[in-house]
């Protein structure tokens, strides 16, 4: 892979400040992978410090890690790189625990990182696919709050889905 030093244009650096005060210095091209930041940069222009009071530093760091990987991809996009990124994405979501997955999804959704949201929702979908109701409940620790008989009634209407 060619290194970024070959590009002669000076890249602008942005400071992103998370809710817990942790700051990240990132290239503009990386941060603008997130729709929300792209909007801010386009609107205000001059501001280099962006406060993100809704995102914790730990998860912002992960989101930016993903952005970095995918921002490179835009500059030299070929098939081989695509494959590498797919593999990287797979690794990225492979061992996420549900707590991290939740916070990442919330952060990605808040920052309008559409592609990252796609990746994460697909991960959640893969945890649901092929499972029965009880198994889904168990996987995500969901408690049913239906009144007695209510659930059976709904099941009856679409009995084909519940065997």
């Amino acid at each position, binding site marked *: 892979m060619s290194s970024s030093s070959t590009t002669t244009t000076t890249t602008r650096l942005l400071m992103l400040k998370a809710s817990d005060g942790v700051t990240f210095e990132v290239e503009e091209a990386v941060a603008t992978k997130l729709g929300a930041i792209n909007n801010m940069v386009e609107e205000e222009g001059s501001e280099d410090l962006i406060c993100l009071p809704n995102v914790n530093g730990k998860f912002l760091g992960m989101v930016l890690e993903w952005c970095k990987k995918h921002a490179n991809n835009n500059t030299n996009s070929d098939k081989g790189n695509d494959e590498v990124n797919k593999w990287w994405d797979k690794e990225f979501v492979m061992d996420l*625990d*549900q*707590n991290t*997955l*939740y916070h990442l*999804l*919330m952060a990605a*959704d808040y920052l309008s990182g559409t592609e990252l*949201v*796609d990746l994460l*929702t*697909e991960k*959640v*979908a893969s945890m*649901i*696919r*092929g*499972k*029965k*109701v009880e198994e*889904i*409940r168990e996987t*995500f*620790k*969901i*408690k*049913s*709050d*239906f009144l007695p008989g209510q*659930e059976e009634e*709904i*099941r009856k*209407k*679409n*009995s*084909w*889905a*519940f*065997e």
Partner: protein
Amino acid sequence: MDVNDRLSELPEEVIHQIMYSLPTLEVTRMSVLSKGFLSMWRSFPVMDLDTDLQLQTTGTSNPKDLFGFVVSCLERRRTSVHQRLRLKSRIWAYGYDEDQRLVNDMFERIINFATRNRTKELHLHYKGKPLYCMSMPIKSLLFSSKYLRSLRLSNIDFDGHYNLILTCPLIEDLKLSHCVGLQSIDITCAAKRIRAVKFKYCEPLDSIRISSNTVESLCWDVYDFYGWGNPDRVRDISLNLPSPESLKHLRLLNVDITDEWFSYHVPQFAGLESLELLNCGRLKNILITGENNKRLRKFLLSSNTDMENVHIAAPNLEHLLIDQNPNPASLSISGCTSTLRKLEILLFRVTGVWIQENLSGLRLLEHLLVGGFSFDCSTDFALNNNKPKHKLCFDSLKDLNLNLTSELLSSVGGFEAPNLDSFNYQCDEFNAASAPLPIVCPNLTNAHLALKFDQNLDASMLRRSLVHLLRSFGHCKTLSLFVVRDVRLISSKDVVWLVDNSLWLVPRPETMSFKGTGNMPDVIIKFYYGKRSSEFKEGKDCVSCCCSSSPVKCWRHCLSEVTWENIDDWLSMKLKNYFVQNAINAVITII
């Protein structure tokens, strides 16, 4: 630790997106997880009415049930804006007026619902009978919808000779399959986002006009009712693209375009990347030059009628398939040899001169398939017999598929492919002169040979030719050999013959297996080797004659144990005798 229910805490639009990538079955299951999920399921702007799923579980295939199911789904969601609405059903309502009415009523409700609820994607995949008859107001509403982005319909009866005029401003793809009563299609400039258009087996569609300048992909497949050679199958069509610059992919199957159409339109498709002309029976002459079709990367041509001149010189062509029977009077592909990566030529009669002219200089070629080639030596021998033959060199070739006679191979001086990895060879007339193949491929790992022998070849000749042939593949990791012989079913008596012959070909195997026919299990024989037997003095007894010329000693010298399974007693005896005679030291075990 994951003790909390994080899923339920996600905002609705995120849950909806998760649902969006799940099949209907799981989405429906999510409705009973909790009250929160029930409400999110109700507001989910996607309706996937897959009655095939229901059929699998409930077994009801009654059109009344289908109707009831669809109507109740629509009722429940009557207020929401819809992203996607799909119906997939195979339920047949055949022969009863009542059922016909139900099916029509159901479709009408769906389409009305879609237009009223600003549905963006409408896919009606109804495979049952009768066809849905589209009534007039519904047609005009649908094809001018301001919200539709994707429209796919199958098994719709447009009722008569309908002229479809598409004006949806946001539509991106239109796909119609197995629709009847459709005469013409006009995609107007108003459809200014349309990118992909596909028509499959729509009758009696014979006129397509695309005025929008955004179409990138056009597929038109016509069903061939008549079969080949029937003059009735040829019909006049009209295919018009006034602003063709955006077109990247064009596929025409059984569409009777003419030479005039081709020579007028194709040069105008400056952005064309892939072109498929399949069985376009009227087309006789094809000329593709570098001037206009610079971007063309893939060209597939098949035809069962006589073509006259086919001349392809697209400068960036990477994949070319020509499937021609009978042959064009003249075929030239020499203009695009420097960029070709994949070349498939089937059923084509060639001469040595043609091969030299068209198949040399293919430096980037990675895949080559040559099938059903026949060699026209009548003209060649007279003209060309005395000329020195040059080997054909393919520097980048990885995958080679040949289905032709060795006569043809040797007549061109052979193939050289230093990077060949996989080789597939099929020969229908393998004879003594066929081996070895004039192919040089030092890095080959997989070879697959399927041979049919000349009837006149006797067993010893056959063995000799085979050994000769296989010698060229000694460096491969896997070699599959399929031998087709016009013989009766091989009886168990022949197994010994088969084992013996196979061992001549592969002198020190680890495992040998024979496919069982019908319910018979596979016969597996395993070989274990020890030290070279000291009892065998060189030059003594039968052993010396077996592999004296070979640097590797064969199994006879060092077989220590042989086991087999799935062989009946009688055959076991025979095999045992064979091994005892040939390898004195071996311990024979039967499983």
